């Protein structure tokens, strides 16, 4: 068992409606690794992601953060995780900036100024816009901006590229690479292929 791994799973199993989605799953994610979870619809991709965040509990097995089960690590783990799920997790009645401030308040704020954060995701002029006035792609970018507004080592994303155009996809892949270089860990599901050096990308096919 490698001790350098940040995030590990041991003998993880997930059962939904009496159907085994996966079992005996052992993963070791060292700093700088990206895990791309693939599989058919309903093969348990989202379930795996939610188990990794601790939102759902596995049928059996455990998720370890630096060798400690995440249930015991508690805030120390949550401080290091940013999750962008199916829902954008944005409040319609707050502005873009207010939403990012909320994200920072819930986690560990990064040193970046929020204006800089918005600039990085090409939403600079939209800071004071209500989220209800943003387009789907803009909302997605704002949701993903949480990744750099907070200082988490683990990024977990469920279909991050939904409703993003090509330019934005490239932008975020660049951010992902930077994060990996800084020793972060990324877990994501995506129907789009990601363009990254193969040695860093760990692929997991759940339909196999």
């Amino acid at each position, binding site marked *: 068992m490698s001790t350098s791994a940040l995030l590990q799973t041991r003998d993880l199993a997930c059962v939904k409606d009496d159907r085994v989605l996966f079992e005996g799953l052992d993963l070791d994610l060292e700093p700088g690794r990206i895990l791309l979870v693939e599989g058919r619809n309903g093969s348990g991709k989202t379930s795996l992601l*939610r188990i990794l*965040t*601790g*939102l*759902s*509990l596995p049928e059996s097995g455990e998720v370890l953060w630096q060798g400690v089960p995440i249930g015991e690590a508690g*805030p120390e783990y*949550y*401080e290091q*995780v940013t*999750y962008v*799920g*199916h*829902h*954008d*997790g*944005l*409040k*319609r*009645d*707050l502005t873009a900036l*207010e939403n990012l401030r*909320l*994200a920072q*308040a*819930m*986690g*560990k*704020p*990064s*040193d970046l100024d929020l204006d800089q954060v918005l600039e990085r995701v090409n939403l600079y002029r939209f800071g004071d816009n209500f989220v209800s006035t943003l387009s789907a792609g803009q909302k997605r970018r704002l949701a993903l901006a949480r990744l750099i507004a907070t*200082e988490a080592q683990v990024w977990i994303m469920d279909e991050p590229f939904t409703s993003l155009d090509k330019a934005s996809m490239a932008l975020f892949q660049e951010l992902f690479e930077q994060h990996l270089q800084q020793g972060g860990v990324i877990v994501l599901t995506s129907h789009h292929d990601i363009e990254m050096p193969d040695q860093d990308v760990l692929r997991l096919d759940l339909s196999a």
Partner: protein
Amino acid sequence: MKRLSLSQAFAFILRRDLLIALRNRSELANPLLFFVLVITLFPLAVGAEPNLLARIAPGIIWVAALLSSMLSLDAMFRSDFEDGTLEQMLLSAHPVPVLVLAKVTAHWLVTGLPLLLISPLLAMMLGLDEGAYGILLLTVLIGTPILSLIGAIGVALTIGLRKGGIILSLLVLPLYVPVLIFAASAVDMASGGLSAMPQISMMLAFLFLSLSLSPWATAAALRMSMS
């Protein structure tokens, strides 16, 4: 940068929820309007006989307060559940019960406090004995937070259900009944010129009990509903 302290996080969530409520003012008025409407309808229906109205005033006011509070419960977590911010809250580095308490506090400030402010006026309209005003206000002040706290558990349990409304009422109503009994009887006593202290003490006990247990129960129920 360091993450916020616990009290800062509490204040942040409280402010955020109040800001959102302020931006949806029309929804804010609903529970209050309901409360006022129910109470104004009573004299029209049972007749404007002063003695009768004064006699049943404590009961009417409290039944209306209870129903109005129940009406607004679902809004406590509904929008957060639907837009995914509830998920983010559960993944926060802060203890979830504290954040839940902040949300319940905001909910009470928005739905409970207006009832408190308007109830003297309604009591006057029903001709409640003047000596009982103080006790009425006290029961509303102590009672409505209890309703919000108990209701939070029920909402958290039913939030995942698409049509949780009826189950929520069935779940929460029995737990509301003790508050109703003690509150109405306290006002009754006071309007008869008797001491309402035993009832008030009981209500205070309920308040502290729900204050210390409800945030934890609600947080656990939310986790269950989300998984």
